[in-house]
């Protein structure tokens, strides 16, 4: 054990030196746009919508895999952005704030629809229907559609078991592909805090996965 710690580049005992990254979003290029939108400048709000509509729509589609629902929720996200704009306090980036609203709206939608069972027992999206009808799917290297649906349903159930903050961090890290450094800048937290939060979130997800796996028919093979 002593030999192992001696080779490590960071100290084995005591607190690691904190790296503080504090980005002042009040001074960012986007801050002026946000202030104008907060003052109910319609052109500023329109610019925000046009800047982020594709991103928001893609996030929602990635979670729900249904274009109609994604469109409906995306509209609701920006309506919420409009009504809550006054509450944005520049502690994080605008995208991070909108991302949080987006994920929360998706989960609110899922709770309302009470998606507890596998998605293939309810309506299919057009893409899923076409895939199932088309025999090319069988020759595709991707896993079968029903396995994909089962995996997605399982992941959504898993993420519902952790806190909103942990869920957003995990999605930003693993789904959106941001690095720890980027997350620190986007959220205003320091890198060590991000690492600790991610680690704890991963542990909680592992425990939730073990519990869900014990339920019959819950976990995909």
């Amino acid at each position, binding site marked *: 054990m002593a030999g*192992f710690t001696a080779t490590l580049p960071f100290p084995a005992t005591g607190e690691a030196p904190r790296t503080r990254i504090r980005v002042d979003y009040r001074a960012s290029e986007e801050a002026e746009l946000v202030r104008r939108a907060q003052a109910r400048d319609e052109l500023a709000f*329109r610019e925000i919508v046009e800047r982020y509509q594709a991103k928001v729509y893609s996030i929602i589609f990635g979670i729900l895999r249904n274009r109609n629902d994604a469109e409906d929720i995306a509209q609701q996200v920006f*309506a919420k952005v409009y009504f809550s704009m006054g509450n944005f306090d520049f502690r994080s980036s605008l995208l991070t704030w909108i991302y949080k609203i987006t994920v929360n709206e998706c989960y609110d939608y899922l709770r309302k629809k009470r998606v507890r069972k596998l998605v293939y027992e309810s309506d299919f999206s057009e893409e899923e229907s076409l895939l199932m009808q088309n025999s090319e799917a069988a020759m595709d290297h991707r896993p079968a559609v029903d396995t*994909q649906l089962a995996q997605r349903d399982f992941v959504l159930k898993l*993420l519902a078991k952790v806190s909103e903050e942990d869920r957003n961090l995990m999605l930003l890290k693993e789904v959106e592909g941001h*690095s720890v450094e980027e997350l620190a800048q986007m959220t205003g937290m320091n890198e060590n805090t991000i690492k600790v939060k991610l680690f704890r979130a991963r542990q909680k997800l592992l425990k939730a996965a073990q519990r869900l796996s014990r339920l019959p028919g819950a976990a995909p093979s």
Partner: protein
Amino acid sequence: MHEPVKEGLEDFLRENGSLEFAAHLETCRECRGEVERMREQALVLRVLRAEEELDPSPGFYARVTARIEAQSRPSFWNVFLEPAFGRRLMYASLTLVVLLGTYLISSESSEPLAVATTAEQYLVEENPAVGANPQQDRDAVLVGLATYNE
């Protein structure tokens, strides 16, 4: 999981782990198992990633503004939620309850007196000379009560 592994986990999951980290995993089965499970979990989470960035259908901004306008318009039922109106409604309801209660109580208590008065009145009317002869009075009262019909 050992502290140094916690520190290097995120780099390892991005396939940018240090040699020391890899060396520790070779020797520590507990950390190796947990890290492997976390790595698999990270891969599974990526099923939520959209394959490409998609655009909503044309006219999206117009639909957003229509939704905002609809949600800004106060509905008829919001009137009942206004504090001032709610207070007035509450006072009016309480007043109505008090008035109804008073009326019901007063109407219930007045009915037995009317019956007694009517019977007494009947006895007096039928026997105007009550008080002259006790025996006669007694008989008269008994006859009066026996023949009394409401």
